[in-house]
């Protein structure tokens, strides 16, 4: 009887499946924005500002911006899902209390959720690529591998957002997280302009930030150039997700099981 309950993979899959069902339950309102977001971004900044800007790193500005945009929506969806979304499920709807009364643990619950959010990030990157391809802004076939970066980028932000959520007492505290951390990343991570244009001391900071590495990986994949920096970025993504993932899951478990 000890081993009658489902194994780890099945338990994680079941949690992942719960989120997929909820997401798919509102397909129109959930699946349209990922296609509109990159479009608005490109039109807003690319069409307006793009024409008056010089080429960057040997690309037209709009092409430079387009590659940066691919993982932006993956970051935002992960940050929202695992702050407001997680908090509401945990504190208001009490959904988690219900879920862990079945044969899954609190750890399974949060790891399954991270996997779902990462999947969602991959879908968002895919949606961005579809939009970019319509405008002829997917320069190489390898650029489509940015879907993978979308997966891991969303995974990183899922982990750090869960970590932040584990400390939050009222939902309004998330405003600080978005204003002071998530939003500035747009300008400090090589999305709209290269980090090389920033003063040296700011550049040092940018390499400590997660989005910088996700964007750098997209650009490396697209150009097919791999150097030491590429592997450092991969290492950063793994380490960042690991540290904040473990801490976030542990601290959140304490809020559910005490």
């Amino acid at each position: 009887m000890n081993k009658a309950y489902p194994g780890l993979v099945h338990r994680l899959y079941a949690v992942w499946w719960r989120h997929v069902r909820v997401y798919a339950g509102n397909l129109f309102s959930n699946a349209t924005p990922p296609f509109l977001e990159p479009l608005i971004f490109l039109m807003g900044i690319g069409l307006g500002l793009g024409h008056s800007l010089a080429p960057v790193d040997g690309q037209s500005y709009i092409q430079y911006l387009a590659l940066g945009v691919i993982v932006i929506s993956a970051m935002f969806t992960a940050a929202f899902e695992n702050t407001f979304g997680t908090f509401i499920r945990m504190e208001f709807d009490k959904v988690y209390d219900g879920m862990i009364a079945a044969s899954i643990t609190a750890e399974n619950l949060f790891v399954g959720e991270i996997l779902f959010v990462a999947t969602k990030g991959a879908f968002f990157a895919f949606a961005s690529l579809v939009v970019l391809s319509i405008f002829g802004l997917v320069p190489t076939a390898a650029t489509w591998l940015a879907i993978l970066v979308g997966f891991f980028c969303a995974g990183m932000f899922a982990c750090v957002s869960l970590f932040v959520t584990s400390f939050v007492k009222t939902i309004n505290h998330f405003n600080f997280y978005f204003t002071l951390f998530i939003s500035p990343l747009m300008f400090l991570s090589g999305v709209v302009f290269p980090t090389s244009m920033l003063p040296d001391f700011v550049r040092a900071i940018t390499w400590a930030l997660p989005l910088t590495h996700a964007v750098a990986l997209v650009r490396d994949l697209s150009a097919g150039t791999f150097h030491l920096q590429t592997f450092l970025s991969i290492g950063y993504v793994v380490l960042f997700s690991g540290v904040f993932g473990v801490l976030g899951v542990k601290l959140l478990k304490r809020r559910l099981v005490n």
Partner: protein
Amino acid sequence: MSDTIAVRVDRVSKGYSPEFQAVSSLSFEVKSSQCFGLLGPNGAGKSSLMRMLYNKTLRDRDEGTIEILGLDPAKDELAIKYVTGIVPQDDNLDVELDIENNLAIYGAFYGIPRKALKTKIGELLEFMELGEKRKSRVRELSGGMRRRLIIARALLNDPKLLLLDEPTTGLDPQVRHLIWDKLRLLKKQGVTMVLTTHYMDEAFQICDELLIMDKGKKVLEGVPARLIKDHIEGYVLEIITSNGEAFSYKGPARREQTRDRLLFYSNSAAELEGIAHQFKAGEFYLRQSNLEDVFLKTTGRSLHE
């Protein structure tokens, strides 16, 4: 079979902080296929105790043991949750899913194969008389329907043990009786139950054994009818008056004055009738004593919050 022990709680404690001890060295045993009731005022530690049975609340580990079907919740949480249906005090249905999917997704947590699950969901919705609501949203359900759905959810994996934390609080009499009928049926099928309640009639109707607790400690334990017999006189006379002290009585009946009532307890109905004669009809009420009288006698009449 009826003599095997399904739940064994031995000197279990839970302190949330040095100042707040929710459960203090509590012990009891639940036999297989029996319904065991936990009674106690709000804050007595009933829910904490229930949650410790499936490791939702961590017991103090320095002393005390819990055995659920031979397993320790602190070590075999998953194996226990696999065979235990849990009906928590607060509604925690998945508000983002419809009724049918609430059960379908929950069934996936147990790893129930898709086809068997579909049949099971149909059966349970019928059993809990929710068949017409399968496509409704959780927020469209009344309190009674939600409660029934939570019980249906707890039954998905054919549990050997059911933990019911105030299953009928806030429900109308029709729904309460329906739920009691279903619980009695499940008990007949061999399901062991641990139940907390504030309703004395509920405890009396479905529990084989009861434990009254207060401030985290056991106050009384036993078979409901026996508890009444052993711990309270057979009859109660209630007289509505806030000035009971003015009434002089020197007889053998036990006397108690509450804020607006004067009460006399005795095993002799005739004795109480004698007292009642001195009051006008409508001012008094003579009745058999019940579990609530035992409860109030053992846990006191003052508020506990």
